[in-house]
């Protein structure tokens, strides 16, 4: 890395220096195109976030793309039912790397208020990796903007080499995940065991 004093001195002379890595991440984090994809109530707050008052365009993310091929970010905005879950996973698989996921709202995180229902998936992270969880029912637009900024920080912290490479530079990581089937009684399989296992509850025997 360059000495900060030297960098500042060069800037005074009109010479701008940077690293390829920070330039690369700067470009990536300021043009995240989300997938235009709403599931339920949270989708309305997602739309409100893109509108004039909250103006997601300030973060370079106002270009909602209807096609997964052109999208970088999937905002899972709403309740994922068992009938819809295969479609959500398939859409994720169709997105091009590097791709990110925000689980917006209680339903996408854990099933939320409908968790006891027979037709509701208890969290989308049972099938696909989630980068940012944002709680709320529904989260306010400010909360969604916070999720965006968190994601931007995560992207800015990635490096071109080494263990903190982004996912698309790590060929051993899978970019597609098995699509579950909408079976007779439940999703088949009900979860992806490589992605998610039930948290172990430890009880002390005192």
């Amino acid at each position: 890395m360059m000495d900060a004093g030297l960098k500042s001195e060069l800037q005074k002379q009109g010479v701008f220096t940077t690293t390829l890595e920070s330039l690369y991440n700067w470009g990536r984090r300021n043009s995240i195109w989300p997938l235009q994809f709403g599931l339920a109530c949270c989708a309305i707050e997602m739309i409100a976030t893109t509108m004039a008052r909250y103006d997601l365009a300030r973060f370079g993310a106002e270009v909602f793309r209807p096609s997964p091929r052109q999208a970088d970010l999937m905002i899972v905005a709403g309740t994922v039912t068992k009938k819809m879950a295969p479609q959500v996973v398939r859409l994720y698989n169709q997105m091009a790397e590097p791709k990110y996921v925000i689980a917006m709202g209680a339903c996408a995180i854990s099933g939320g208020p409908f968790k006891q229902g027979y037709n509701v998936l208890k969290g989308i992270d049972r099938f696909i990796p989630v980068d940012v969880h944002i709680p709320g029912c529904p989260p306010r637009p400010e909360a969604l903007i916070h999720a965006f900024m968190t994601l931007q920080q995560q992207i800015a912290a990635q490096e071109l080499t080494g263990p903190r490479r982004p996912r698309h530079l790590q060929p051993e990581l899978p970019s597609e995940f098995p699509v579950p089937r909408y079976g007779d009684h439940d999703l088949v399989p009900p979860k992806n065991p490589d992605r998610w296992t039930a948290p172990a509850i430890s009880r002390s025997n005192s």
Partner: protein
Amino acid sequence: MKPEVETTVPRVELRPKDAAAGQWLEVAMGPHHPSTHGVFRMDVVLDGERIVQLKPVFGYLHRNHEKLGEGMSYLASIPYTDRLDYFCSLTNNWAYTLAVEKLAGLTVPERAEYIRIITAELTRLQNHACLAGFLLQDLGATGTPLMYAFREREKILDLFEALTGARMMCNYMRFGGCRCDLPEDWVPRAKKVVAETPRFIDEFENLLATNEILLARTQGVGALPAALAVNAGITGPMLRASGVNYDLRKVDRYGLYDRFAFKVPLGAHGDTYDRYFVRMLEMRESVKILEQALATIPDGPIIDPKTRLRGFRPKGGEAYGRIEAPKGELGFYLISDGGPNPYRYRIRPPSLINLTVLEDLCRGHTVADAVAILGSVDIVLGEVDR
């Protein structure tokens, strides 16, 4: 621009030999489609660009609402009703509390009825504004009308937030009244918002009502004959656009609606343009109701002091409460067996029942028109699938 308005839906001859020769094309629009207003699928069969058959497929957002309602207390169901039609949580609250009040024989104080009317009409304003925005977005006016609609919606949501603490999921009404009283400066703020609304409607109409593209895309498209609308059980602005004078605010006179002077706008052709325009006119009527209600709201209690919210056990029986929600007749049917939970909890969703005529509306039109017709039906999938 089309010279005149067609009032009947043209029928396309079914030609099985084309199907055999592979000339028909089956297209699944949805559940991921930018114009289907959520997770809704239309399986269309196309002859060229014309729709021959259309099968609506839903259930992608089935959240077991009714089953969950049977397993929890009457009070605990109120937040769930918010999430039915998530644009209009306050009218959903009202329909449910009305059913419970009928079941238990509770009365509502006058001030609470006024607050209910004010919040319901504000809900209607923002629902219709957003509907127009989404419809025009589907027609290709990307951004601007929807931005204007959401600008107005944010003002109304600010009022809801000041009153109930939440923007969308208000969870505000209770059996026998409302949860909390209006904040001190709420009525003047609401008056200001209401006073600004006609200017917004004027602006919207100046932009759109005579817009040539809008006229060409919507006039004569998806006409719904009045007889079919009545037979199919269509309610709300969609029924009134077909010229049937049926508004539960006038028919049932629930709440205190008979104290206020307002008109029921009716359409003449029942096409997509009428469905759009009837909603614009309804917004003006809502403004009239709001002006009257905000000027005359009385003081007093906001909830019947005899109401027991917790440990609420109405005696056995059944009740059906219905209101004129922004999308149509929203009804809740409850059967009590004397226990703390309803024995049966059934919702009559206007969105689902208005959707049943979609094939009749779309047959013979192009795929692009199907998008416009669906936009004018005004569905919310949370209510369709429940």
